[in-house]
């Protein structure tokens, strides 16, 4: 990476990634202002764009595309526990009748709606 030509090549990549990130941001806002019938679709598109943008930042700006094995091992552990955390969240949703869409309501879910603060 100390070779000036090598660095100059990387600089071009950084500028291309910068352009892609700006386009991604514009697309995210465009999705918001273009009214989709399905909220789930709008959420999915926004999160997919965010994931692509985050991958570009991590891959190129943080050099994850060409890192050492030690970093990949650390990231693999992080990814494992992060996915586990999110899976626990989804699992917890199934524990709650109010969240899982079950018609059977738990005793604690009978709070008057007027008292609920979103």
């Amino acid at each position, binding site marked *: *990476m100390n070779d000036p030509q090598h660095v100059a090549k990387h600089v071009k990549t950084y500028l291309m990634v910068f352009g892609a*990130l700006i386009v991604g941001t514009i697309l*995210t806002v465009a999705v918001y202002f273009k009214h989709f019938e399905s909220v789930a679709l709008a959420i999915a598109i*926004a999160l997919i764009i*965010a994931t692509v943008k985050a991958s570009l930042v991590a891959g190129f700006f*943080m050099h994850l595309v060409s890192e050492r094995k030690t970093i990949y091992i650390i990231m693999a*552990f992080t990814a494992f526990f992060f996915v586990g955390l999110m899976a*626990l969240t989804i699992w917890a949703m199934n524990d709650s009748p109010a969240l899982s869409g079950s018609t059977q309501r738990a005793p604690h879910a009978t709070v008057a709606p007027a008292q609920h603060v979103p």
Partner: protein
Amino acid sequence: MDIPFTVKLRDDTTLYNAKVGIWLFLGSEVMLFGALFSSYILLRVGAPPGTWPRGLLNVPIGAFNTIVLIVSSVTVVMSWASLKLGNLGKFRFYQAITLLCALSFLTIKSFEYRDKFTHYEVWKTDGARMTGHVEGGPYFWSTQTLKDKKLDHIVFHPDPHHYTEPVKPHAGAAAEHEGHAAITIPVAEIARLSAFVPAHSTYFAIYFTLTALHGLHVFGGALVIGYLWGPGAKLWKTDPERFTNRIEISGLFWHFVDLVWIFLFPVLYLL
């Protein structure tokens, strides 16, 4: 005594120590923000239909702040590349832009916060609810404030729509500023008054938790970058490779801060 492996690579990790350290730290940061994101998901999905506030944040300002952070990420990596090319002047130029971006981000965020602290929701005793501004633009008023000040009425400038009502698609924050015809509301008819502060609702509690924590990261990152831009740059004269490594480490943290915002923006502003 010299600190080992600040430049020289270790045989076992094939990295200098600080790089392993920052990635371990970033791993813990992923879990910290991951826990808050998963909390957000649970709260969002668990909210009864139509009760989760939408359109209360200013999307163009949020998008602008996203671009500010993206620009700062590019200048951080360009400053590191400049050092690799042996150009301290360019490094200083790019990092000055980074610091300006950090300052801009925090300034814009503080204006957004100020807007929320002067924006109110009124729950009336007849069940009606409205959002808007109290005459005079006071900060942090609550139901208790009305009692403490012994007011018998407030002059309120309601927003055109309440967030629980079906509105024209994505009217957003821009619609808030349409038609602020003032109305007088007797305090006896007010069941609850709250500014858009964490106590207002679960939404604002998680919004302020996430954005304030992120803002603290921006502030901390800017402090480190500012130090390395100013007094810390003396190291360049004596040990340029070690200084370049320090810039790489601070840059990795900064990119992470940018990465978190890339998710925060759509989740909080758009969904």
